[in-house]
């Protein structure tokens, strides 16, 4: 189902962050959102996640869809193992082997039983990506998901994303314009002042 955003606006402490933003995200498409810091990219994702309420405008078509998300921060439970962090969001009955296969695909199978706090920044990012993808989302909201990854790891992560979530509607916030090409983005959105 396509997502339609109409005239969306949001302010924090009287300072407008997102102004009259409209867009349509087709079902199964990849859209990349670029723009300098503070122009409302993360705010837009949080509005789509319903973590924030808009000051004005409307969002249609996302309500009943299953969402997978990579946040700007990793948002992992540091004391829990990588496996447990991922299991936390899974439905009942997902076998460990399935989670381990996903971790294998992003090069983290050996780290499955380590606590998340022991991982490097790039590894945590990959765990967050697996967590978003494993729920078989209809919509993937990704905020700088490849931050802290070297070129090879990033290529693996993009390959994993395309392989495991081929039908998801993807909204990707990134600073790297090459990501749009590698993910086959159908739509580029520039948010600026």
């Amino acid at each position, binding site marked *: 189902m396509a997502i339609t955003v109409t005239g969306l606006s949001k302010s924090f402490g009287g300072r407008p962050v997102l102004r009259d933003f409209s867009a349509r995200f087709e079902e199964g498409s990849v859209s990349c959102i670029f723009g300098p810091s503070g122009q409302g990219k993360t705010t837009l994702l949080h509005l789509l*996640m319903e*973590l924030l309420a808009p000051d004005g405008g409307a969002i249609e078509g996302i309500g009943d869809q299953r*969402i*997978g*998300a990579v*946040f700007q*921060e990793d*948002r992992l*439970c540091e*004391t*829990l*193992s990588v496996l*447990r962090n991922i299991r*936390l*969001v899974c439905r009942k009955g997902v076998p460990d082997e399935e989670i381990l296969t996903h971790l294998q695909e992003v090069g983290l199978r050996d780290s499955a039983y380590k*606590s998340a706090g022991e991982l490097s920044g790039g590894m945590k990012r990959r765990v967050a990506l697996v*967590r978003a993808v494993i*729920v078989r989302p209809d919509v993937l909201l990704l905020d700088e998901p490849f931050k802290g990854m070297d070129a090879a790891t990033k290529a693996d992560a993009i390959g994993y994303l395309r392989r495991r979530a081929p039908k998801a509607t993807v909204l990707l916030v990134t600073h790297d314009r090459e990501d749009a090409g590698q993910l086959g983005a159908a739509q580029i959105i520039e948010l600026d002042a």
Partner: protein
Amino acid sequence: MMRSTTRGKTLLVRAGAVAFWLLLWQLMSMLIGQDILLVSPLRTLAVLGQLAGSGEFWQSVLHSFVKIAFGFLLAIAGGSLFALLSYKNRVVRELLYPLVTVIKATPVASFVILALIWIKSQNLSVFTSFLMAFPIAYTNLLSGLQETDPKLLEMAQVFGVSFGKRLLYIHLPAVSPYFVSACSLSVGLCWKAGIAAEVIGLPARSVGSALYQAKIYLQTGEMFAWTLVIILVSLLFERAVLYVIRLLQNRIERM
């Protein structure tokens, strides 16, 4: 290796400190020279040995332990439940605020004397230790719940994580240090207040009653021996509680 050496040194220093105070106590009692005023540590141990030979001693210790431990566990369970309800519902939080404040500020003696009108003296120490531990458990756990990382809760909301899983894997790690601190703080208080209640209420076969009897007959040696028992049982109980909590924490982290 280095860690065990440091631990060994710490234990040695602590043992030295204990030995210093025991020696000072022994010297003071020798200086005063009257057992009725200050009995020596050696005499206290001797009296304790005599007391431990009777079945009544163990019955009294068991009675007081069961009642005080029950009051403590009830308070921890009740404090946890109400902290959770207060966290979820502001009305509950505001309703409980004056009650918890009053419980915290009211002297133990007032509660005990009032409680004697309502309940049997046999159960007085359950009630008193409950009242000591409840506000600590409630306040600490509520603080822990409120300190839970809101970003993790947002993540859970987006992924539709169930309340049970949130509680176990997001709230519990945040609450854990507060819970340990609440248990550690309240165990000692429960014993102090529980025994005080027994001294006032005089339930049959209890440590408090024995302490009172010893005071009536000016048996200072027995008073010291019973006090030593209270300290030892309280410390052992605290250690046991903290050990169980650590076991549970490890188990949850490994799940």
